């Protein structure tokens, strides 16, 4: 709440929304110098989320998931949350399918990004845009 207040969140309160961060700042700690290619990763979210406290997010990566070619890491990023790294997941050929889903908190309308690293070390990205009517981090007074 404090961070949200400092970032000046919430149109309902007549303040400006939290600023969005530049994506390269967010993925660089994971990808290093590499820029993730915009392919193979599909992120699905509801287009409109009634509140930001639990927003379902699912990620699907186009991969055969064999020992030679599989997804080993998936990272969920938000460019408007006080802590932009939502979660990191480790997968492998034993997963069989490169798919996962979870529920996240979102601090306002934004684009959610999923990064995926395949076994050859390359990074891929996919995004989804979510309209959040009531942002998270505004509860509790």
């Amino acid at each position, binding site marked *: 709440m404090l961070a*949200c207040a400092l970032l000046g969140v919430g149109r309902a309160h007549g303040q400006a929304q939290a600023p969005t961060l530049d994506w390269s700042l967010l993925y660089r700690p994971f990808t290093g110098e590499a820029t993730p290619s915009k392919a193979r990763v599909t992120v699905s979210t509801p287009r409109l989320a009634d509140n930001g406290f*639990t927003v379902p997010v699912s990620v699907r990566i186009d991969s055969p998931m064999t020992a030679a070619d599989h997804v080993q890491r998936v990272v969920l990023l938000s460019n408007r949350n006080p802590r932009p790294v939502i*979660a990191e997941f480790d997968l492998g050929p034993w*997963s*069989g399918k490169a798919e*996962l*889903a*979870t529920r*996240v908190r979102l601090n306002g309308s934004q684009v959610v990004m999923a990064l995926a690293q395949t076994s050859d070390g390359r990074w891929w990205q996919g995004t989804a845009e979510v309209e959040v009517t009531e942002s998270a981090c505004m509860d509790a007074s």
Partner: protein
Amino acid sequence: MLARIQLSSPVRRGQPMEVRLLVQHPMETGFRFDVLGTTIPKNVIHTLHASYGGRTVFRARLGSGVAANPYFQFWVMPDDSGELLVQWQDDQGQSGEVSAKVEVTRA
């Protein structure tokens, strides 16, 4: 801590099995205040680890961006009947686990 695992059935050898996991946890962000105005300390499940037959099949490192009572859906390809064991730890050092028996039917 309460938790529940749901598996797709029937489970066939060499076919991906859908795992749905729900863990009861407040996932406190550390940004909230209680009625006296003091900050409620951050307390989230920071690591979650799933193994099947002793082998790691899924790992998650979580932050406060994951909603309360975290839910995960992922896939595991079982090569034999066994036990799916999920363990997690939160910032207060509390840990929990839940397991499910998996019967693999012959395809």
